[in-house]
């Protein structure tokens, strides 16, 4: 197809280093880096200069270096040894520490770079060291091995051309993910066959996004036109991931060494600095001023005092010849420097080292805390940085995620509503599949003929429309499987909602068995296995907030099942009992349940082939593939028939309410930022006591803005808040007063972006100011319908507001990473949604309730300790230097 497209940012890879057949394209061998991973910072040769340079970039070290040099050059009261030795000590200790760390990195690098890799050369399997791997080599990976570089998946030992992979070390998700081999190559099963492959791959230049990849493979068969196939992230096996459940696979290396996505993701985070450190630097500047002024005063006084010759040079104390000849100004300058050296201890040398040690050792107390150890995961808190210990005690704003942080993210299927009839599973089973829960309690059971049909369709839809995988227990092998229809198996998915739904449906009689040869198997209520051919999956994304599958039943009907948030389904529905379901959904949302709506549509063969064509086109695009796909989805997912809705309960984390209450009592403002819809989020907020019964809720939502203009709404709210504030007397400020009205603000993503949007008429800051003012007067703020980036925006907005409050962001999922990185202190919850948040955070804790002890005990103690330490250091040095300064008045300002 589009071979003429001009790609600036792409690379061409010749699989197995074979030239394309003549006439196709010119063979231009490109040069790529080898597969060496370099995470070390220094080499043996550049260690000393580079390390010294890095160390002297710190102001304190540089200052002491200057002092040392001054002491070397001019005659000063203290010998250069006194400042040289400590400096040397500090530098050496740091250098040894960094050198040791780097040596470890070198060792780790070597271990990785030298581990053996199998690859194919001239039809034979060859073992080589990993670092000798080059782009274009064909690699064989066996089960439980890690991929040595980023590979395009060519074929696997599994007949259907799939393989399973865990990416635990990449993004922390332990679930098995399925990857698909390139269609045209999946038939090659041994070395000779794979070596005969003649193909080129065109793909984008390396980029760090783990989940994005676009490329194209051109397979040459004899002399025919090459067959082009799209390559997506489902064909790309990433370095660092592990092959599971698959005997072996073949792949071709496309990104190697430092260009792999894993290596690109290892870029270090920007360093966060604590407020204490910043104020320490201010202190230092002040002290520097004191130092300079002391030295100046003394120099001036010295020359005033010496103006009389009997003082300048009495008979018992004569000057040397060179001293007599020296220029007066030069002499004064050296005197000034000598005074500087004399008083230089006012800036504490040892403080930096001591403070760093204190922080480093102190940070262990968090990890050691028994009360913050979680038995269930078997993990305690993790401290990723020790620089921010004392910040924990100064937090003014907490931004928390809802799902997985405030709530357990342990989903339970509560009920479903089909055509207005509500079904509740009899036995509430928590994450476990029980064999005896088959009963259905029909609250409102009057399904007519068509109702029955709808009901079955609904269950099938839930059974089919998901991306859940089945993990069979190891003890049960193939033999048993066929004998016991209801085997114990575990459903794995990246989304806990789906697991809850599939499990819930199982309790209602429909069991999802497995995905085999592109056919989904379902065990229905009559214990018959139904098979559906899986044609397409439109996977879930947070923009569309829905997912769809297209399946073909055994009878040949093609269905499109779609499930998603109510807001994204209702506009696309053309028939069904919308009103009844909508009211049910809203009721459930108010109770704090997560609701999903299910809809379907029947496709004719013709429609389906049309869909297929659209998809194929979009998938083949190299640029803007995401956008084009989204457009196609938009086109396809419409005119649904509404089936029903489900409700899943997400229980609150233990003691979440208690924690929030304690934090609010401590004067910390808690904001909840969530992607959920307003009703659900507000219900959670009530449940965890963020909003109380007497809290007056201010709403700033799209609905309200539609009625009034944003301008009016903002001003109205502002007036309400200010009126209340004005009636407050000063001494109720302590927060003890219970009778005063407190406010809770609810804002949604759309209105927030309106507020944040820079305006053309120059009054851009205006809305923000009003918004901030409203927020400042609210005890709790709930932001719902937030995109991950908006979360970070909010944090930034507060962080940069006038008072410069210290902010903390806490979350557990990948969507919280941006706000965790943005806030002063980022805390990750070691939770279910993977470890991405925990890895990017400064501290990671197992449960939300641990935040209470973390902030109110540890943070408080750290803050007190560090401030006492720093203040003591400065006090000590003033005490040390001030007598020295006064003594100059008694010894003729001679720097003694």
């Amino acid at each position, binding site marked *: 197809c589009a071979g003429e497209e001009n790609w600036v940012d792409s690379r061409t890879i010749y699989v197995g280093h074979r030239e394309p057949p003549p006439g196709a394209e010119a063979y231009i061998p490109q040069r790529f880096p080898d597969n060496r991973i370099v995470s070390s910072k220094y080499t043996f040769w550049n260690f000393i200069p580079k390390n010294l340079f890095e160390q002297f970039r710190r102001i304190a070290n540089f200052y002491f270096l200057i002092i040392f040099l001054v002491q070397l050059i001019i005659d000063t*009261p203290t010998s250069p040894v006194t400042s040289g030795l400590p400096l040397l000590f500090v530098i050496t200790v740091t250098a040894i520490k960094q050198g040791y760390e780097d040596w470890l990195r070198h060792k780790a690098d070597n271990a990785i770079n030298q581990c053996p890799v199998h690859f194919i050369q001239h039809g034979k399997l060859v073992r080589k060291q990993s670092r000798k791997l080059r782009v274009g080599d064909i690699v064989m990976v066996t089960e439980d091995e890690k991929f040595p570089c980023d590979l395009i998946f060519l074929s696997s030992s599994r007949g259907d051309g799939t393989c399973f992979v865990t990416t635990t070390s990449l993004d922390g998700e332990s679930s098995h993910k399925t990857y698909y081999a390139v269609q045209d190559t999946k038939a090659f099963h041994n070395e000779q066959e794979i070596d005969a492959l003649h193909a080129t791959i065109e793909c984008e230049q390396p980029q760090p996004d783990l989940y994005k990849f676009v490329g194209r493979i051109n397979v040459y068969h004899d002399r025919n036109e090459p067959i082009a196939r799209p390559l997506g992230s489902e064909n790309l096996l990433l370095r660092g991931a592990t092959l599971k459940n698959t005997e072996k696979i073949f792949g071709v290396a496309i990104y190697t060494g430092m260009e792999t996505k894993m290596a690109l993701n290892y870029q270090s985070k920007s360093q966060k600095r604590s407020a204490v450190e910043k104020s320490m630097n201010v202190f230092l500047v002040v002290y520097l001023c004191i130092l300079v002024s002391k030295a100046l005063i003394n120099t001036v006084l010295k020359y005033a005092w010496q103006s009389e010759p*009997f*003082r300048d040079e*009495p*008979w*018992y*104390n*004569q*000057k*040397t*010849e060179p001293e007599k000849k020296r220029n007066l100004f030069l002499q004064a300058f050296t005197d000034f420097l000598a005074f500087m050296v004399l008083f230089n201890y006012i800036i504490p040398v040892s403080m930096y080292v001591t403070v760093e040690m204190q922080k480093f050792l102190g940070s*262990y*107390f968090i*990890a*050691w*805390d*028994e009360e913050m*150890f979680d*038995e269930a995961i*078997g*993990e*305690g808190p993790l401290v990723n940085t020790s620089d921010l210990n004392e910040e924990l005690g100064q937090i003014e704003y907490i931004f928390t995620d809802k799902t997985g942080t405030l709530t357990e993210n342990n989903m339970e299927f509560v009920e479903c509503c089909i055509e207005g009839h509500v079904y509740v599973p009899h036995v509430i089973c928590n994450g476990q599949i029980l064999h005896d829960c088959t009963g259905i309690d029909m609250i409102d059971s009057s399904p007519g003929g068509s109702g029955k049909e709808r009901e079955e369709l609904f269950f099938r839809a839930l059974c089919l429309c998901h991306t859940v995988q089945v993990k069979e227990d190891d003890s049960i092998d193939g033999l048993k499987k066929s004998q016991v229809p209801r085997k114990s198996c575990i459903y794995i998915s990246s989304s806990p909602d789906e697991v809850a739904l599939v499990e819930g449906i199982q309790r209602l009689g429909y069991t999802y068995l497995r995905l085999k040869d592109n056919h989904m198997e379902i065990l229905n209520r009559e214990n018959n296995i139904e098979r559906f051919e899986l044609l397409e999956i439109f996977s879930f994304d947070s923009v569309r907030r829905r997912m769809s599958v297209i399946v073909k039943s055994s009878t040949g009907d093609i269905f499109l099942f779609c499930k998603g948030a109510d807001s994204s389904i209702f506009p696309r529905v053309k028939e069904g009992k919308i009103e009844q379901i909508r009211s049910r959904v809203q009721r459930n949302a108010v109770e704090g349940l997560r609701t999903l709506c299910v809809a379907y549509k029947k496709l004719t063969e013709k429609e389906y082939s049309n869909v297929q064509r659209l998809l194929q086109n979009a998938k083949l695009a190299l640029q803007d593939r995401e956008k084009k796909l989204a457009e196609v989805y938009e086109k396809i997912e419409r005119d649904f028939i509404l089936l029903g809705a489900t409700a899943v309960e997400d229980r609150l984390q233990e003691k979440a309410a208690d924690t929030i209450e304690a934090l609010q009592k401590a004067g910390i403002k808690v904001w909840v930022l969530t992607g959920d819809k307003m009703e659900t989020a507000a219900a959670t907020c009530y449940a965890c006591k963020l909003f109380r019964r007497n809290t007056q809720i201010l709403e700033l939502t799209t609905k309200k803005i539609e009625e009034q203009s944003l301008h009016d709404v903002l001003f109205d709210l502002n007036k309400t808040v200010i009126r209340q504030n004005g009636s407050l007397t000063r001494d109720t400020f302590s927060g003890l007063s219970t009778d005063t009205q407190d406010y809770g603000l609810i804002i949604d993503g759309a209105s927030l972006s309106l507020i944040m949007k820079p305006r053309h008429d120059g009054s851009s800051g205006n809305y923000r100011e009003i918004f901030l003012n409203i927020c400042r007067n609210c005890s709790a703020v709930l932001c719902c319908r937030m995109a991950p980036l908006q979360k970070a925006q909010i944090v930034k907005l507060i962080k940069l507001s006038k008072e410069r409050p210290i902010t903390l962001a806490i979350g557990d999922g990948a969507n919280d990473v941006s706000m965790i990185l943005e806030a002063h202190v980022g805390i990750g919850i070691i939770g279910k949604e993977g470890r991405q948040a925990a890895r990017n955070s400064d501290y990671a804790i197992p449960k939300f309730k641990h935040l209470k002890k973390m902030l109110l005990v540890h943070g408080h*103690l750290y803050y007190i300790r560090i401030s006492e330490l720093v203040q003591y250091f400065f006090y000590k040095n003033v005490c040390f230097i001030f007598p020295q300064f006064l003594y100059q008045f*008694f*010894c*003729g300002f*001679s*720097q*003694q």
Partner: protein
Amino acid sequence: SRCPDNSAFKQQRLPAWKPQLTIASVLSSFFLTGAFCLTAGVCLLLSANSVREIQVDYSDKCSDCSKLRENSSNWNKECHCSVNFTLNEDILGDVFMYYGLQNFYQNHRRYMMSRSDAQLLGRNVKIPRRYCVPFSTYSNGTPMVPCGAIANSMFNDTIDLFYNRNSSVIQVPLLKTGISWWTDKNVKFRNPNSYNLSSAFAGTARPPYWQKPVYLLDKEDERNNGFVNDDFIVWMRVSAFATFRNLYRRVRRVRHFAEGLPAGNYTFRISYNFPVTRFKGRKHVILSTVVWSGGSNPFLGIAYLVTGTAATLTGFVITGIHLKLRKKKT
């Protein structure tokens, strides 16, 4: 397992003492400190006042001498002068004689640096020392021994004390040893090894302001000669302030002076060599006894008194504030 230890240290449960600032503890600590400081101050002051001390300023007592010394070319002209004083009461116990200097900056950095400790240990006396410049060598290259500004400016007046008793004049016997620190005398100062001192110092010259070479400082006592001369050692220990006194002699308690100095008329006979008018200084001779708290300096006592008073006053102020606030509350 990975569960952390339940130890007192790791769980931060080590016993700690965090005093609560209650009115009782604060007030009692203030009053206790105040009382302690006041008593200590009173004791110190009393003991300092019990010291008997005579101080005589003789810088201008013999005006011709001070004139004579203003010109350094008259260095070898002798000048004697005597100062009379009367003791109204006996001074009992050990009596020490000091000389005191005012406005003499022994603590000036350039001055303090100008010495060679290696030389004073008797090592390589003939080598010129860098630190001693400009009192290191003469222009012809002969090294000065001892070198440096400190040694060069050594106090060189000789003071004798006479007791005028019924028109007969008795010289008060004075001891010139045992006035320096033990470590100085035995560790920090050593004569160079040689069979006699003059040969040890051969090839060197006396400092310019000295009247006699170092090996003639005390001709009678070998153990008090050269670098280990007590007067020299006392001078070499520089003082911290521009006004200071150094121990010069001890009164030997024999015959009339077995109990100390009896009341009566005395005369200091001074050989006036040390010029002070050129740097607007003064010099004194002082007779004093010592007590457990040292000499007659009342500073420590006053400091304790001031601190004690301040603490007590603060205590009263706090009590006042506390009483006032308590009334308001009830």
